[in-house]
């Protein structure tokens, strides 16, 4: 996947589908990777590359699998060990992959270096144990942390006890009434213990078989005694424990959590909203008299108050990771804004060279105006729709981030004229093409045939001579990602497609395999809407702009 030379015109090669097994799957925008992205490669080179993917036994049987949170563990159980981990289908990059299992040889988008053991920072195996009453944002925390840690290259996986509970109940049958009560009947207690054992078994398998480094155990963990047992059990297996407790003493935060949890949790599908909230709050009050906050001075723990208002870090013997996690937590917001991705307009050079940094062409300027109008109209209609549904929250202010390259700044100029705040960030500059600057696909194949071969094998990490790789980009973009998490505004990012791929890859937990092939057309604005359990993607069509090559 050649992504170095930008904006080259699309070659007339026919579109090549990824695999024959995909015939049954409904077409999705992402499946068009070949036609939009491969114009620099000869069609034969392309189909060889993707044909490997098509005939691989791993991906073969998985065309229909839909990985929703509740079905995830069920899938794990029904597959044999060899096929447990799949390589992600490119066409499902529109779904947040944060709940997917990682393969044992998974390498993360922003991983700084690989080690023999697969474990980074010499921190060994760590289990992050979440502590906190229901509706304290623990699951959101687990999901966000997983996203960020995986991004950094720490092999992380979240294990939600709630998922295991749902799997252990036969479909159609409800949870026993006394399931969440402390003085439950013996049969319920046995059921509860089975659920916990199943979850822990997966945690151990993650560490031992899959060379996982960080497991996040998402459950209430209300008693000090219970936590001590966990620490002892983990330490016997060489696993260090870091507790993160989420504490809330503001009722409005708790209610807002319940409302959003109710929407996205599988537990309450089909329930009436008021009944669901009441049921949930009752669950909470049943546990309250038996909840003991973290107080054990010898434990390593982080206490998070009111979603980040206050953070207490105790005894960080596990080194690098707690500091990094705390830094992330300081910037994490439950109510993050939307992120929009848009490409820069066409430049005066057909194949814009990195070194010349050309201006926008007339066509590019026209595009900039249409882009501005489309986005603002979309936001207005969204706001109207929300108010119609009774949601009177004010529209979040929109800000624009561009790189320091001229065509991105000029694309955003229309927004600036209308009074929107535009900020130029050098970190958002495109991937450096190095010696391939300004060369066409054919010229690159001619001049660097060996490099092209290596690039096909590992498009994410391979660097052409003097160029950057996607991995370098990911490391470079980390401050941008953290600021994105912190800012409650809506953000429009106007940048080169290589940068958009990496940022999208972070928000949607894409694998390094998928990131170089992500598609960003000029006639679309990609909108990412954050939510507690997973992020969602929407594509806003820009009318009056023709489709173009992704390069």
């Amino acid at each position, binding site marked *: 996947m050649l992504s170095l030379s930008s904006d080259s015109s699309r070659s007339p090669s026919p579109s090549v589908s990824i695999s024959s097994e995909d015939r049954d799957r409904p077409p999705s925008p992402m499946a068009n990777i070949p036609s939009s992205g491969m114009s620099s490669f000869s069609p034969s080179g392309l189909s060889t590359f993707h044909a490997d993917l098509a005939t691989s036994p791993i991906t073969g049987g998985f065309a229909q699998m839909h990985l929703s949170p509740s079905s995830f563990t069920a899938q794990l159980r029904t597959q044999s060990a060899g096929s447990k981990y799949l390589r992600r289908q490119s066409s499902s990059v529109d779904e947040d992959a944060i709940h997917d299992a990682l393969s044992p040889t998974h390498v993360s988008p922003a991983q700084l270096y690989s080690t023999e053991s697969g474990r980074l920072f010499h921190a060994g195996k760590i289990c992050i144990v979440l502590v906190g009453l229901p509706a304290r944002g623990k699951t959101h925390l687990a999901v966000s942390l997983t996203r960020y840690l995986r991004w950094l290259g720490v092999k992380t996986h979240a294990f939600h006890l709630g998922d295991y509970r749902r799997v252990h109940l036969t479909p159609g049958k409800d949870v026993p009434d006394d399931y969440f009560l402390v003085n439950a009947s013996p049969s319920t207690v046995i059921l509860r213990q089975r659920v916990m054992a199943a979850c822990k078994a997966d945690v151990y398998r993650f560490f031992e078989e899959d060379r996982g480094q960080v497991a996040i155990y998402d459950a209430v963990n209300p008693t000090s005694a219970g936590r001590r047992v966990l620490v002892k059990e983990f330490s016997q297996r060489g696993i260090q424990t870091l507790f993160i407790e989420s504490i809330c003493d503001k009722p409005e935060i708790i209610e807002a959590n319940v409302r959003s949890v109710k929407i996205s949790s599988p537990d309450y599908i089909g329930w009436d909203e008021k009944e669901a909230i009441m049921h949930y709050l009752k669950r909470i009050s049943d546990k309250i008299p038996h909840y003991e906050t973290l107080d054990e001075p010898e434990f390593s723990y982080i206490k998070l108050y009111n979603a980040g208002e206050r953070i207490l*870090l105790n005894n960080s013997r596990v080194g690098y990771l707690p500091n990094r996690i705390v830094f992330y937590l300081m910037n994490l917001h439950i109510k993050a804004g939307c992120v929009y991705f848009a490409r820069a307009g066409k430049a005066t050079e057909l194949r814009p060279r990195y070194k010349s*940094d050309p201006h926008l062409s007339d066509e590019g300027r026209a595009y900039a105006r249409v882009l501005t109008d489309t986005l603002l109209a979309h936001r207005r209609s969204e706001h109207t729709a929300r108010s119609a549904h009774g949601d009177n929250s004010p529209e979040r202010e929109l800000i624009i981030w561009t790189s320091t390259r001229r065509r991105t700044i000029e694309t955003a100029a229309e927004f600036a004229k209308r009074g929107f705040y535009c900020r130029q960030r050098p970190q958002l500059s495109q991937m*450096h093409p190095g010696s391939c600057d300004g060369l066409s696909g054919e010229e690159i194949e001619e001049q660097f045939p060996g490099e092209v071969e290596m690039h096909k094998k590992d498009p994410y990490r391979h660097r052409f001579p003097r160029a950057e790789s996607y991995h370098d980009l990911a490391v470079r973009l980390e401050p941008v990602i953290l600021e994105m998490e912190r800012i409650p505004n809506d953000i429009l990012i106007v940048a080169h497609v290589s940068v958009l791929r990496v940022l999208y890859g972070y928000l949607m937990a894409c694998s390094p395999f998928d990131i170089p092939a992500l598609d960003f057309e000029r006639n679309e604005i990609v909108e990412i809407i954050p939510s507690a359990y997973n992020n969602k993607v929407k594509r806003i069509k820009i009318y009056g702009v023709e489709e173009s090559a992704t390069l």
Partner: protein
Amino acid sequence: MASYSFQAENIQICVIMVGLPARGKSLIAQKIVRYLTWLSIRAKCFNVGNYRRLETAHPTAEFFDVNNSEGERLRKLAAEAAIRDMFRWFDHEQGVVGILDATNTTKSRRNWILDLCRKRNVEPMFVESWCDDEDLIMQNIMDVKTTSPDYVGQDPEKAALDFRNRIRNYEKVYETISERDLTYVKLINVGSQVIINRIQSYLESRIVYYLMNLHIKPRCIWLSRHGESAFNLVGKIGGDSDLSERGREYARQLPRLVKMSVGDRPLTVWTSTLKRTQQTAKYLPYRQLTWKALDELDAGQCDGLTYEEIENRYPDDFAARDENKYEYRYPGGESYRDVVVRLEPIIMELERQENIMIVTHQAVLRCIYAYFMNVPQDQSPWMEVPLHTLIQLEPKAYGTEVIRIKADIPAVSTYREKGQSAKIKK
């Protein structure tokens, strides 16, 4: 934070140090200034003790007794003077982060400062250093206070005793921060516990993250450029050339030089992704990591040219670079400022680590050196960092010690003075 207003770009933060004497407040304050200055964020430290010394040069412990009304009055005056200067600096010198370095141990004192900040629209952030580890405290006292201007000329034993009494006076009125609506970070026993409250902005979170990664274990950092390269010999900049014969000799000598300096201490070596640094480090018997961020400053269109060629082809650019070498960005390339931005994770990692050796390039080395030695922006791009020299940095309490170890292998000089094209001295 209901609305994130973009006055955030014109943010002004006052970091208010809190803590008993000998808790490392001044050290922390100075490190923050050094870090932010390196990132081109204007920061300055206002040490109340210095203002107090203008009036009262050699006070005894009784001066600091809260019941000593004359002492109280003079100390308050000193605090006022420091704060006045700080606000003047915010207003007239585009200050961004001002650090008020004083004990600020009582709630009433903190409230007073808080009021002043809020009136001026400056965001207050408290940093409290709390320590009850006796050994640490004694070490601090010995290291710093006995060389303090307050005790100049006095017998160190007596000075230490008097200082201990001074601390006792402060202890009587010490109120640790507990007000929940303040923005603060509390470092307890050098970070074994950290409490972070109400961080308001990304810049504040960066400062807190930086503080959390600091440690006070003694360690050294070694810096070296790659050995002389083929491009160096012909005066070309940039590129990814191999080492010259003399450069290879340096690579062979390097393990001996490093061993002499490092001894038996554990060490990790960091190189860039360009061949010449990796070739230089290849005989070193330590764990090696490559960082793209350590690659040389990208010269864009001028990559592979000599300074003479650049002067002939791009005379305006050549002159502009001399005018402001730190900000000047090569067309299609980078400036020193861009290099600093990409070096920041390296610096953060360096603060966390212990003994590290970095083999890198001229511009990158200048930036890293500038961070540790607090070299200002108008000077750092002009620093002389010759080839075939190992630089040892030892960060200490109030500064960094530098030792330069020259390998006895001649090399060209890649140093160019303002207004000249490179003259190759063989």
